[in-house]
C-alpha cells in the first residue's frame, strides 16, 4: 500500500444493485459493477487483464471480509463471490483462495459458501473468542494504552503462513470509536489480535493504532487491492447497530489500491448521510455529545476519524481531496 494506483478511487453505483423492496443484492449487477470498476481503475478494456495486474496464478489469495455487524451488515456474499470468481478466472486455483475474518461466530451468520466457487476456503482466526492460536506468535505490534497486561497485537497466522496477496473487502460504515470503518480499519483491526484494548471509557487510541497496524509487514505489502462494499451501509451506531433506521443503501462499490484515498471518500459519504439526517459530524469532539447513542447526536466515544489522515502520514496513501482522482460510474 498504497499500491499501483495511489490517490485513485473508482466509485461504481447502480440503482439496480439492490432490490428496492427486499434489499437483496443482484449478483449479475454486482458482477457488472466490479468489472466496470476494475476497467476504470486499470484502464484495461478487459477487466480480467486488470485483475492480472494484481494477481498471478501462483498466488495464494486472501479475501479479507468484514463481518463486524453481522448478521445485520457484512461484506456481501455477492461481492465476495464475484471477487473470488475473478481470481479463479485469472488462474488462481480455488483451493488457493481463502475468505477470512477474525471471528468465527460472526462469519457463521453469513452464507459465503453459497456464493463462492467450489473449493474456495473459509478461515477464521478465533474459532473460540479470545484464542491466540490463530495468530502468529512471532509477528506483532507491541504497545500499551491503558496499562493492560497483554501488550501485543499479533497478525493472523494465515497471512504469515500462507497468503501471498490480500484483496480487502470492507463495508461503508460509521464506527463509534474510529469514526469510519473502511479499508484501513479492516486491514488493521481485522488482521490483528487484541485490538479492542485501544478503547476505554470515551477514549480510543484508534487514531494512531489503525495506521500503525496497517503499515506493519507483511500486511502492508500483501494487500494489493481494496473493493469496498457500499451496497449497504451504517451511518450511526456502527459497526454493530441493530437499528434499521441507522442503515442506508448507497448501492455502490469502490475500488482502489490506496486505502487512505478510499477511506477519505468513505468519510465524505458518511458525513453527507449524517448531515442529511441532521446528525453531528463524526469529527465532533465536544464532550456534550457523549452519551446514549440511540440518539444520533450522541456517541460512546470521542471518535477518531483522523486515523485516515494519520495513515497518510505513514505513507499509506493520499488524504488530500484535491489530490485524489475520483472516477464515478453509474450503471
Amino acid at each position: 500500500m498504497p499500491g499501483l494506483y495511489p490517490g485513485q478511487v473508482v466509485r461504481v453505483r447502480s440503482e439496480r444493485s439492490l432490490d428496492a423492496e427486499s434489499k437483496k443484492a443482484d449478483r449479475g449487477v454486482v458482477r457488472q459493477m466490479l468489472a466496470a470498476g476494475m476497467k476504470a481503475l486499470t484502464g484495461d478494456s478487459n477487466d480480467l487483464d486488470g485483475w492480472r495486474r494484481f494477481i498471478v496464478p501462483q498466488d495464494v489469495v486472501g479475501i479479507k471480509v468484514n463481518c463486524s455487524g453481522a448478521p445485520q451488515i457484512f461484506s456481501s456474499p455477492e461481492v465476495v463471490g464475484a471477487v473470488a470468481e475473478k481470481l479463479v478466472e485469472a488462474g488462481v486455483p480455488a483451493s488457493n483462495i481463502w475468505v477470512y475474518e477474525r471471528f468465527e461466530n460472526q462469519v457463521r451468520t453469513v452464507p459465503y459458501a453459497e456464493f463462492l466457487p467450489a473449493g474456495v476456503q473459509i478461515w477464521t482466526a478465533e474459532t473460540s473468542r479470545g484464542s491466540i492460536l490463530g495468530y502468529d506468535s512471532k509477528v506483532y505490534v507491541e504497545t500499551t494504552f491503558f496499562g493492560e497486561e497483554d501488550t501485543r497485537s499479533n497478525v493472523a497466522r494465515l497471512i504469515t503462513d500462507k497468503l501471498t496477496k490480500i484483496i480487502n473487502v470492507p463495508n461503508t460504515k460509521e464506527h463509534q470509536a474510529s469514526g469510519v470503518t473502511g479499508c484501513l480499519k479492516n486491514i488493521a483491526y481485522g488482521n490483528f489480535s487484541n485490538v479492542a484494548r485501544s478503547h476505554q471509557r470515551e477514549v480510543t487510541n484508534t487514531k494512531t493504532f489503525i495506521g500503525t497496524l496497517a503499515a506493519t509487514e507483511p500486511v502492508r505489502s500483501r494487500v494489493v487491492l481494496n473493493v469496498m462494499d457500499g451496497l449497504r451501509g451504517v451511518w450511526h451506531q456502527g459497526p454493530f447497530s441493530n437499528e434499521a433506521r441507522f442503515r442506508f443503501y448507497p448501492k455502490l462499490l469502490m475500488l482502489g489500491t490506496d486505502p487512505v484515498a478510499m477511506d477519505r471518500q468513505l468519510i465524505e459519504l458518511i458525513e453527507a448521510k449524517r448531515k442529511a439526517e441532521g446528525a453531528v459530524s463524526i469529527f465532533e469532539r465536544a464532550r456534550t455529545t457523549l452519551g446514549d447513542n440511540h440518539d444520533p447526536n450522541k456517541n460512546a466515544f470521542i471518535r477518531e476519524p483522523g486515523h485516515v489522515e494519520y495513515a497518510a502520514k505513514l505513507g499509506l496513501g493520499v488524504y488530500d481531496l484535491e489530490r485524489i482522482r475520483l472516477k464515478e460510474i453509474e450503471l
Partner: protein
Amino acid sequence: MLLLAAALLPRLFWDAGPETAPALRQAGIEKIAVAAERVASWKGVLDVEAADPSRAIRLVAPSVDYRANQASASRTPWINANGWRIVRQPAGEFVYDVKGAQAALAAAEAFSWNANALIRTDAAGVGPLGEMLRLLKGVPAEDLAPVADFGFEDDGSATAGEVMNLFVKGNLLFRIVPRPDPALKMHVKLGTKEYPLEDAKNPVKIAQMARANLSDDRRSVRVYGSVVVVTRLLAARDRARLHLLNYAGAERRVDGIRVRVAGEYSKATVRPEMKILDFEKVDGGTEFTLPEIRTYVVVDLQK
C-alpha cells in the same frame, strides 16, 4: 531462600462421615482432615488428621468476576486471588471454603504459593479436587526460590495488602523486604516520593507506577493472550518452574496463551502433558505457547 517447591499438598477438610469414604476413594483422595471429634470415626477408613478451620486464615474462593453488566473504568475482569495473603503470612495455615470445580483451582493456587491449606468443599468438589491432587502429586520436588523483580515494604496496612494483590494479579514478581535489597531491580515503599500515600488511595495507580518504573522489558515473566491467568515463577541457576493458574477455572478454558520467561532455556516439561508450541529463545528470554489452560498448568524449564 530455597524451598522444596512440591513439599506442601493441600488437604481436603471434610465434614461428612465415613459413609462417604467410597466417593472420596473413587476421587483418588487418600488423606483427609476432619474436626478433632470426628477423627476416631474415620480411623482405619482413610488416612486422617485433625484440623480446626476456625483457627486458619480464611481465603477467598479463587474465581473471576466479569461484571459485564457493571460500568467500570476497565475492561479487565476482577480476579479473586489469594497469593498476596499467603505471601504476607507464609507460615500461616489457610482454609478455603469452595464449591464444585473451584476446589481444584483452590488446590492449585495453594500449591503454587506453597501454602499450608485446607480445602473445605462439597460433594461436587471432591472429583475435581481429587483430579487436581493427582496432578499436583506428580510434580517433582525441586529446590527452587521464588523469583522477585523488586522488593516491597509491607507496612501491614490494608492498602499495602491491596497493592500486593494487584502485583500478584498483574504478574509483577515481588518479595516482601524490610529494607531495599540491592539484589533486586527496584524497591517499592508506600509513602515515599515515588509512591506517595495520596496516590496509594488508588492502589491500581501504585501497581501501574511500579510496573512502569520496572518496565516490561525487565520483568521476569509476561503473559499474553489472557487477563485471567496468574503466574508464579521459581528458579535456580539452571532451571525454573512456572505455575499458571486460570482463575476462570473449568468454567472457561483459556485457548492458547503465550508466555515469556527471562533467561534462555532449552527444554520444557509441561503438566498436564500437552504439546508446547512455538518454543524459542528471544532477546535473552524464552517464549512458548501453551495450547490451553483448563485450571492449572506447571511448566518446568531446563537450561
